[in-house]
């Protein structure tokens, strides 16, 4: 089975994340880049499927030069090879442009299964997996907490507000995962060393047959009008429990008419 895992490099949540004042895009230099957390679960699931069914795991990541750090991490976990979609023309693409560019790269690479995290910790649109399925015309098996492949059929448990849905489809398919699905492995020393020798192919827009007028900041379907750092919340009252902390909290709730 030919599995492609889409991995995004995101700014570390633990550092201060910013937008750039000039073009209002994510300031990728302001924070350390890390692997989007849910994408690590996607890599893990891809590796487990490969271990069970055989095949190959390819990492696909779109982003600037420093995205190679993220690609190496996924390779160190055990993926076989990688494709880095990297071109200045892609800079500032919104979700529509990104899904288009990735879908073109996926067509070029070929796949039985595409796996990715259900959302990124920076943009958090939660739309990209469904957009990829739409663009590729493949079944959308998103928000999966369990994945089973049997020959050319695939079953997932898709989490919902009321529990989960059991969903079935045929391969090829797009799967997005939630963190309940597994526990991602840490790269071993051996894995880190091996990752350095694994092939990473770089694709530009021309290589992936990406129409330049469908990607990039200038061609986005939406724009940031303005942004501002959120004003701090007004300081509240903090009391030390002297045996009456619960009663005091109740008084506060009553004063706000919650009780």
């Amino acid at each position, binding site marked *: 089975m030919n599995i492609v895992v889409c991995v995004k490099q995101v700014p570390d*949540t*633990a550092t201060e*994340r910013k*937008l750039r004042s000039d073009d209002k895009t994510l300031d990728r230099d302001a924070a350390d880049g890390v692997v989007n*957390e849910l994408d690590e679960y996607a890599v893990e699931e891809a590796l487990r499927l490969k271990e069970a069914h055989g095949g190959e795991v390819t990492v696909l990541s779109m982003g600037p030069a420093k995205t190679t750090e993220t690609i190496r991490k996924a390779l160190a976990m055990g993926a076989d090879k990688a494709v880095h979609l990297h071109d200045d023309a892609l800079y500032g693409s919104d*979700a529509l442009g990104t*899904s288009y560019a990735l879908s073109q790269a996926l067509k070029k690479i070929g796949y039985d299964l595409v796996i990715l995290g259900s959302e990124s*910790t*920076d*943009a*958090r*649109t939660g*739309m*990209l*997996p*469904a*957009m990829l*399925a*739409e663009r590729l015309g493949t*079944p*959308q*098996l*998103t*928000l999966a*907490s369990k994945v089973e492949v049997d020959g050319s059929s695939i079953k997932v448990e*898709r989490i*919902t*507000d*009321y*529990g*989960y*849905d*059991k*969903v*079935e*489809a*045929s391969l090829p398919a797009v799967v997005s995962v939630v963190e*309940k699905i597994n526990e991602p492995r840490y790269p071993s020393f051996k894995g880190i060393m091996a990752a350095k020798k694994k092939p990473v192919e770089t694709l530009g827009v021309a290589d992936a047959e990406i129409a330049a007028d469908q990607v990039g900041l200038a061609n986005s*379907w*939406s*724009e940031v*009008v*303005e942004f*501002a*750092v*959120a004003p701090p*919340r007004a300081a*509240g*009252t*903090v*009391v030390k*429990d002297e045996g009456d*902390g*619960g009663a005091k*909290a*109740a008084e506060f*709730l*009553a004063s706000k008419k*919650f*009780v």
Partner: protein
Amino acid sequence: MSEILVLVDHVDGDVKKVTLELLTLAGSLGTPAAVWAGSGYSDAAKAKLAEYGAEKIYVAAADEIGDYVSAPKAEVLAHLVAERSPAAVFLAATGEGKEIAGRLAIKTDSGVISDAVGVGEGFVAEQSIFGGGVNVRSRVTKGTPIITVRPNSTAPVAAPAAGAEEKVEVALSDAARAARIVERVVQEKGARPELTEAAIVVSGGRGVGSGENFAIIEKLADALGAAVGASRAATDAGWYPHQFQVGQTGKTVSPQLYIAAGISGAIQHRAGMQTSKTIVVINKDAEAPLFEIADFGVVGDLFQVVPQLTEEIEKRK
């Protein structure tokens, strides 16, 4: 005024509160038109949608719409966008709502904005990003603005309207029938409101210490008619089910009141609750970062404070 389509979020025919919020929001910017997709449409649903401002209700009631993941609903909306040229399309910023919005954007070559906390003139959307650290105003620049709106962002206001029904027949494509839902598994949640819809959420974290101890969180929630949430630490430990996780990799909630007990408040958690209107924090560690955004905080043992709070609330009822 031009029409704004609102996709009705419903479970087995029950219209969810977020839909009424979206109708109210649409009513402030144009003429709301509800779009019902799937089975379960009823007079009660119609009455509710009309009560909250739906001038029109487009009804695509084919059972098979609900038999497949997300794609059929996107096809129903794409059909209406092509036929009716609405001024905008609003959907709930739920897992499914965002997926449908994404697919619709591609089908209609339109821009899409995810997880807005408000929408103003010109369909300029407000978003709260980076865990609530930055406020953004953005707008769609191509096609029909498609906007998903976070539940609890607008207070629903009754505004009776005609609710004129119009049947919609859409022939689903094969692609929309690709991912088939073979079974819906409903997990017990009792009488509590749904997490993202609830006006009040009571969450427990690492400090709760065990799954059994979550009973005291549940008791407080029940006294307030609230939903129960949990931090990542609590769900990772298996103390509370995963779908109740509030945070960056879980649910984003924006209730009137959020009570956090035994949660220190790492940015990952704050990202899921920072837009709550009133925040109450109970933690034995006075240095817990969540106190920084608390409207009211109690530094103390949650096993003392929470039961006392529950008791006081019961007394005041």
